[in-house]
């Protein structure tokens, strides 16, 4: 059974069709990369899956049940966790409190003490220990992205949606982060991680399967190397072959 299934999902903004009749199936245990030119609808797709926006058309099935009309917090309870492309930590709260919120209200919904412990664990994992008790608003954009990752992980999601978390990250950190994601997903049985990214070495290092979006629709859906060597992808997205990028 597919973990997540989208059928003909369409999301419009006024005249603009941001996601266009998107159908997609994600099986458990997959690592997926979603790429595509700027404005091709990747973030919008995430917003539709996590419930920030409701689609005009189509349905979203998670673990066999229809969640198309569920509010975002219910989806979080079911196990959909995400980060935001532009980090949105709760600025006046400390890093620890931020991550604890994820644990507290996420899939397992634990009490305050436990979530603080969980938070400490994930803060250590992403390497924010030194900043644990700092007000999160005072961190750099990159550090804020780490908070986002820790917070999403603390939700113990079954499906983790990462939106450009590596952008602006130091190449070495990217490697580390990819390793970490893989480990965590194995340990915690996060069924799949989907990652939107423009940094090809991150995508290649991470994804087994790559979905290329173009103008709101799926252009290519194939194993990573194959997808990124597709001439259409080079044409609309990469500009040159991946090795040069």
């Amino acid at each position, binding site marked *: 059974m597919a973990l997540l299934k989208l059928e003909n999902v369409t999301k419009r903004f006024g005249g603009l069709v941001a996601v266009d009749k998107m159908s997609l199936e994600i099986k458990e245990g997959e690592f997926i990369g979603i790429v595509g030119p700027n404005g091709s609808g990747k973030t919008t797709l995430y917003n539709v899956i996590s419930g920030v926006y409701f689609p005009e058309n189509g349905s979203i099935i998670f673990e066999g049940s229809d969640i198309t009309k569920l509010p975002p917090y219910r989806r979080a309870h079911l196990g959909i966790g995400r980060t935001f492309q532009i980090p949105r930590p709760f600025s006046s709260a400390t890093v620890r409190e931020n991550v604890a919120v994820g644990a507290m209200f996420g899939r397992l919904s634990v009490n305050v003490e436990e979530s603080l412990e969980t938070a400490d664990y994930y803060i250590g994992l992403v390497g924010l220990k030194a900043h644990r008790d700092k007000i999160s608003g005072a961190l750099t954009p990159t550090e804020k992205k780490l908070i986002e990752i820790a917070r999403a992980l603390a939700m113990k999601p079954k499906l983790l949606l990462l939106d450009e978390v590596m952008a602006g990250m130091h190449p*070495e950190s990217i490697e580390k982060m990819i390793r970490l994601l893989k480990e965590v997903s194995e340990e915690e049985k996060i069924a799949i991680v989907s990652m939107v990214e423009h940094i090809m070495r991150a995508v290649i290092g991470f994804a087994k399967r790559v979905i290329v979006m173009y103008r709101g629709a799926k252009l290519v859906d194939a194993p990573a190397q194959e997808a990124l060597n597709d001439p259409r992808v080079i044409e609309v997205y990469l500009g040159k072959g991946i090795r040069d990028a």
Partner: protein
Amino acid sequence: MIRGLLRFTLGRESEMLKVDNLESGYRPMQVLWGLNLEVKKGSITSLLGPNGAGKSTTLKTVFGSVLPWNGKILYEGMDITELPTHSKVEKGIVLVPEGRHLFPNMTVKENLIMGAYSEEAAKRQVESFELVYSLFPVLKERTKQRASSLSGGEQQMVAIGRALMVRPKIMMLDEPSQGLAPRLVIQVFEAIERMRGEIGLSVLFVEQNVETSLDISDYVYIMHEGSIKAEGTPKEIRALTDIREAYLGV
């Protein structure tokens, strides 16, 4: 050796920007700890380093949106440490900030016009438009579109274009390639090179995209924990394997 000598003798004329022992931060936290760097006239200089090194803070302090605590910022030999941002812009220093900061409800054209806000720049508005459109032909097709509805890459171009409308002598860019599709990254770097080539602009930029940065830069600084740890031409930096690995991870 020769290079050092050259710098010593020719420094005065060719030096665009010089940052001397700069300290700043976000009270109470200090981020920059005595930073020194300089940008030569008509050169592309890049500032590389791990996350949290203080690269953005450096640019923001030079620009003035973060106030310097100590040290000096010299621009064409003139002390501009205390100048407010708008005076710096009038003098030809411009920043393309991280996150672009466009005016979302204004059209592309209106955004660009805002760039030519200072009186000096306003006079040369027509000329500037031609320059921007020749560098970024896509923008010409989008003049009437609202900035918020552009794709990320197009937004970055508007941000750079807007900065060009200022008629700057030095442009500072904070991670111009961040969040851009690979195809657009190439375009942006090409644009940077052309700005230098065609209008002799001095450029100081911060990047994570090390390889490309080394490709187009004339001079490179490597920064860590608030100060410069190494500097040199791309060739020199490429040769310093240990430094490269320690601070750049490549």
